[in-house]
């Protein structure tokens, strides 16, 4: 029996689950598409973990992050619920010595995290624009008729990149089509898209921030060597992509769960069997005041597990009295 920690990152595009040993070695990782069904994605991920796992393990702590972190924490019984920025920062700190800048590009968001002396000192997250994210690349790859996995290799083949307006995802697309109609090569256009994304990222998030090396590039998009190269060209120094770059958020959760466990807390983990349970989600609209909150209820095999969404806490408090869950922010 081996002690280990579980980290779950439920994002908009992918759901990542990582099982980490006490020595911070990654035992198993599962990377599945969320496809708008986070609960099913978690269950699928759990099944994948179970099949890949060769030894018996005891989970000593669980953490969740990502935009679906609260939902995930309710389903699996997480001990730690953390935002993506902290989770990514902690993971990078632990796996890359002396890192001072993290560039992170995920499915529908992107962030830059600055670290000084081993502490997160500043961060920024994309606000009004999705042109600097993975979903944008996904869509353009589909339009160009190539697999997203080949996107980076294609970009490297380019000799003279096309300049594509990257201010906004929609305008970038129309500009790209325009360039296609002019007759540019596919690989030049792909390289242009990579450059546009990087330009968008550095102008939106990096503006006014001191980007110092070592720079770590993580998130799903870090697999794309085209983007990595564009970053290196724009920044002027090497960008490092860690081996588990696509699951760094989940790794951060493992580390936080470990810290939580070392402080002497017991885990609330529901067990891997929940992959076989049935979940239902119901919503009601509370009409007791002008806020008209949408209250979400989650049932596991017909038992009410959690409820949230109300501003005043009237509904969520009802459940909390029974099972003491951490208050949702």
């Amino acid at each position, binding site marked *: 029996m081996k002690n280990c920690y579980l980290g779950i990152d439920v994002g908009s595009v992918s759901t990542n689950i990582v099982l980490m040993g006490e020595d911070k070695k990654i035992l198993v990782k599962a990377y599945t598409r969320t496809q708008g069904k986070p609960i099913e994605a978690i269950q699928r991920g759990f099944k994948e973990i179970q099949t890949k796992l060769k030894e018996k393990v005891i989970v000593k702590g669980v953490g969740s992050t990502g935009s679906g972190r609260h939902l995930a924490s309710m389903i699996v019984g997480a001990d730690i619920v953390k935002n993506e920025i902290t989770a990514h920062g902690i993971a990078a700190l632990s796996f890359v010595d002396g890192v001072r800048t993290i560039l992170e590009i995920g499915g529908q968001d992107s962030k830059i995290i600055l670290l000084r002396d081993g502490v*997160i*000192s500043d961060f920024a997250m994309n606000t009004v624009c999705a042109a600097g994210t993975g979903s944008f690349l996904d869509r353009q790859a589909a339009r160009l008729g190539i697999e997203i996995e080949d996107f980076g290799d294609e970009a490297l083949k380019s000799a003279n990149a096309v300049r594509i307006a990257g201010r906004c995802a929609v305008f970038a697309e129309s500009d790209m089509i325009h360039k296609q109609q002019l007759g540019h090569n596919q690989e030049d256009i792909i390289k242009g898209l990579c450059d546009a994304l990087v330009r968008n990222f550095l102008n939106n998030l990096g503006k006014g921030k001191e980007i110092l090396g070592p720079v770590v590039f993580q998130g799903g998009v870090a697999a794309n060597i085209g983007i990595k190269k564009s970053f290196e060209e724009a920044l002027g120094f090497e960008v490092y992509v860690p081996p588990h770059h696509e699951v760094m958020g989940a790794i951060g959760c493992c580390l936080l769960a470990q810290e939580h466990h070392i402080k002497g807390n017991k885990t609330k983990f529901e067990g891997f069997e929940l992959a076989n349970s049935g979940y239902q989600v119901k919503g009601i609209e509370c009409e007791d005041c*002008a806020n008209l909150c949408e209250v979400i209820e989650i049932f596991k095999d017909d038992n009410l597990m959690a409820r949230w969404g109300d501003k005043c806490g009237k509904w969520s408090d009802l459940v909390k009295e029974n099972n003491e869950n951490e208050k949702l922010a």
Partner: protein
Amino acid sequence: MKVTFPHMGNQYVATKILLEELGVDIVVPAECNQEALNIGTQHSPESICLPLKVNIGNYMKGFKEGADTIVLTGSCGPCRFGYYSILQKEILKDMGYDDIKVILLDPPQGDYKNFIDSVTELAQTKNPYKILRALKKAIQILYEVDALEEATHYKRPRQKQKGLVDRYYDQFHKDVRKVYGYKETSRVIEKARQDILNIEEEPNREILKIGIIGEIYTVIEPFVNLNIEKKLGDMGIEVHRSLKISHWLTEHLFLSPLNLTMEGKTRKAAEPYIKTMIGGHARETVGHGVRYAQEGFDGIIQIYPFTCMPEIVAQSILPKVETDYNTPYLCLIVDEMTGEAGFNTRIEAFTDLLQRRKELRHNEKLLSGN
């Protein structure tokens, strides 16, 4: 004449008292909510700042309950707020409210006659004694409400049972709409304040302090800033808000026309970064930020409505303050398209950052991550 007015945080309590003490018939519009914002967004210019949109929504609520007159304050600074009354009149006209009367209480700027004319029109009396007495009571209420809010800021991170402060505070908002006149209102406020101050505290909690700066309306109105004070309080953070309506009123109505000011210190603090008035509260925002940093606050958060020029200038200055004083700074911009999830993630990450820094200072090393 039935008077209504736009919301701005707890200002409605004082305005209500002022008008009630004058014997004016009033309608207190429903608190700011999504519906008010939707109405405002629909009828206002798209790129105008958020407060104007919410105001329009507030008026509609007031009209629905029978109001036929609006009273609002003006401003003299070169910020769009000074233009609000004119623009809002035009918008209302377009919406078909031609017969709505607008009474504007512009800060006097030395011209007390105009100001007094507006006041007498609103008060429907020329008896200065009566007007001054009502005004005095209203200002007193303003200070009392601000003291009540301060109590919630202090207590929220410290309360043993989470949510208790909000229960009393929400009850206060319900109660205050039911009472009439200065005396009763003052009693309701005091009762709420005592209730909140008597809440049992958790003694061993580590409290972080964050100073909130930025544009006055977004800083003060909880619906617009997505209840940031409550959110931070629930995360164990004591909030200090740089702007209070009571101070603003004293400053602009009484001190500034007489060339006196309470904000000298703030302006002085801002001087190394911004020497002159550029409109709105940019200079004060920077000044307050510097003062919080000097006083050893753990972090600073700036909030402003999308497209607010003075605050954009302040935003570009504040990173310099951040590095000079080694105090983390976060900027939040709100408009009707603000998504709450992203907002929460940023606030959470910011508090984590502050906590880690504090831990590091205590232990001289990070607990996790190495």
